C-alpha cells in the first residue's frame, strides 16, 4: 500500500513537471531539504503563497484604480515574478511575463485579462501542490 502510494506520489510529481507547472527550481528546493528542515519545500511554498498575497492585492487595486499606470504595474509584476521564481511556478511565471509585455505595450485590457489567468494558475498550482504534499506525507508515514 505504501508502495502504491509512493508510486502515486512519484507520478504526481512527475506530471507536475511534465505539464509545466513546475520547473527546476522546485528540484533545487527539494535538494535543500535536510534533517534540520525535512519539510523545506512546503515551507517555501507556504511562504510564497502568504507573502505574495499582498502583492496580488496591490496589483488588483492598481488595475482597478490606476489601470494606466503601467510602470507601477510592471514594477509590481516584476516583484511578483521574482516570487514565483522562488518555487519554480512555471506557468505562473509565464503569465507574469505576458503581463509585463502588456504593460510595455500599454495594453490595459491585456493586463487585466492576463492577470485573471495568472490568478487561476496560482490557484491551480496551489491545489495541486497541496494534494501532492498531502500524498507525500501519507506515503512517508
Amino acid at each position, binding site marked *: 500500500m505504501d508502495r502504491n502510494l509512493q508510486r502515486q506520489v512519484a507520478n504526481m510529481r512527475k506530471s507536475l513537471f511534465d505539464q509545466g507547472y513546475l520547473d527546476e*527550481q522546485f528540484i533545487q528546493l527539494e*535538494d535543500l531539504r535536510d534533517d534540520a528542515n525535512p519539510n523545506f519545500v512546503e515551507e517555501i511554498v507556504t511562504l510564497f503563497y502568504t507573502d505574495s498575497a499582498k502583492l496580488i492585492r496591490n496589483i488588483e487595486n492598481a488595475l482597478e484604480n490606476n489601470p494606466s499606470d503601467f510602470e507601477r504595474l510592471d514594477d509590481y509584476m516584476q516583484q511578483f515574478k521574482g516570487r514565483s521564481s522562488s518555487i519554480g511556478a512555471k506557468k505562473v511565471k509565464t503569465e507574469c511575463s505576458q503581463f509585463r509585455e502588456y504593460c510595455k505595450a500599454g495594453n490595459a485590457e491585456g493586463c487585466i485579462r492576463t492577470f485573471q489567468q495568472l490568478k487561476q494558475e496560482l490557484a491551480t498550482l496551489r491545489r495541486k501542490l497541496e494534494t501532492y504534499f498531502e500524498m507525500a506525507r501519507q506515503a512517508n508515514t
Partner: protein
Amino acid sequence: MDSFPAGLRVLVVDDDLAWLRILEKMLKKCSYEVTTCCLAREALDLLRERKDGFDIVISDVNMPDMDGFKLLEHVGLEMDLPVIMMSVDGETSRVMRGVQHGACDYLLKPIRMKELRNIWQHVFRKRIHEVRDIEGQECMEEIQIMRHGSDLSDEWHSFSGGELNSAKKRKDLENKHDDKDYGDPTSVKKARVVWTVDLHQKFVRAVNQIGFDKVGPKKILDLMNVPWLTRENVASHLQKYRLYLSRIQKENDLKASFGAIKQSDLSSKDTDGSPGLQNSLDIQKTDAASGIYGMCGNKTIIQNADPKFHEGELKGIVSMPLVESKKATIHDIPEPPKASNSRTAPNHAFVPLETDVKYGRFDSSVRKQYSWCEVPQTQFKQEHKVNLQIEKGFNHLPSVGSRPFTREREKPGYMDIKPSYTKRSTQQIRQAIPIGIGAYSFPVESENHMTGFQASEPILSTTTLSMKNHGLSQIFINNNSAFASADGDLLACLLQGDRCTSNIELQNKESLNYHSQDFFTETPAYVNETQRFDYDYPWETMEYPVIDQGLFIV
C-alpha cells in the same frame, strides 16, 4: 585557503521572504555565516551597527522600501563592502545600472547554489586589490619622503605596540621591497575610516562652510576638528561626495526632464563662470567608474561601450565629480595627484569626454533624503585606502542624522543566524581613546588575505558578472591590465606584488588590512595640498604594518 570561504559573513537583503529563506539555506550550505533582512533600511542599520560585521552583501534590486541600487551605493560608500545584486530581471540595462552603482556581481533569479558558492571570490579579490594598492603605492614613493613628508607623522609616532610585529609581516609580503625598511616602529597600520553619519555631517558642514567651490581636504580637515582623521581620508571622502552629488544631480535631471541633459550644460562651466571643465567624463562612465567602487576589484575598470573611453585613460582616476556647489561653480579637476599612487599618466587619466552631468545646482533636497550623502567611490583607484576603523562596539557615535535610525526591529526585520566561528579577521583594539568626540577605539583590522596570491590571479582575470544569458561578459577588467600602461616602476612593483605569495592563512590570523582611501580629486585650488598629500601617502601606506594592539592616540 580551504577554510577561507567558510564562515564568510553574508548579509542578504530581500523583501521576498521565500527567496530570503532559500538563500539563507543555500548560503549556509556553503558554510557561510548568514544574516537575513527583509528591509533595506534595516539592513543599513545593521551594517552600521555592526561595523565590520559582514564581508559581503547580497541584495535584491527591486525592494519596496528602498531601491536596491540606493542601498548599493550606501553600502559601497559607507562600508565599502562588495555587494551582489539580484533580480528576476536580466535586462542588460538593469544589469548595467547595477554595475554602474557598484555591484560586483549581478545574479538572476532563480539563483543556483553554485553561483553562491563563488561569492567569496569577490571578497577575496577586493582585499587583494587593496593590498596591491598599497604595495603599488609604496613602490611609487621614496621612503624619505614618506618619512618626512608628512605633518601627520607626529601622530603616527605615538602609535605604540605591535607595529613592529606588523611591520615584519608587511615585510614578508613585499619581497620586492628589500631595500625599504619597514621596521619603523613608528609605522602604523592604517585602519579603515568609517564615515559614520556623525562624521559625515561634520564633513558636510565643513564643506558648506568653506564653500563647495573653495573646498579642499586640508581646509575641511581643519574645520572638522577630528584629530584622528587624516587629510587623505578627507580627500577620498570628498571625492566620493562629489561623485555622489554629480550622480544625484544627474538622476534628478533625468527625472525632471528626460533629455534635459545637454551638452550645453556641460559647458555650463562658462555660464557659471567657472573655469573650464576638464576631465569631464561621460556620466555613464562616471557611473561606471564609480560602479565598481569599492566593490570588487578596486582596480577593475568597466569597459564602457563608449568608444572614447579608453581603459588606459580611465585607469585609476576617475572622474572627478563635477558637481556644482550651491555657489554655482564648477570644479575643475585637474589631473589627479599622481603621487598618490596614481598609476595613471597625469593628465591623461582624465579623458576629457563630455559629461552628462549637468552642473547644476547642488541639489540640497536630495541631500536631505539621505542624512549621509554617500558618494560612490571610484574604484579605479582605491589607491591607498587608508582607513581608520572606529570601533563601534563601544563608543557610540551618536546617530545623529536627519534620518532617524530605527533601532527597533519590528518583526523579523532581520534574522540573525549565530555564527559558528568568531570573526576571523580582526584583532581589534579595545581601548577607548577619548578624543573629545567620544570614546573611540580604533580597532585595527588585520587581515592578510595574501593567501595564495597567485591563486587569485585566475579569479581576477576571469571576473565576470554571472549573468545568465547575457552578452555582457567581461565587464570587469582585471586591474593588472589596468596598470599595464602605468609607470614602469609601478608596473614592476605590481607584478612583483602579484608574485608575492605569502601563504598566510586568512583565518584566525592577523593579517594586514590595507585600506587606503585615496581618491584624488583635487581641484587646482589645492593642488599644493595634493602634492603634499601624495607624499603623505606613501609614508602612510607603506608603514602599515598592523597595529595589533596599537592604539591610535591622537
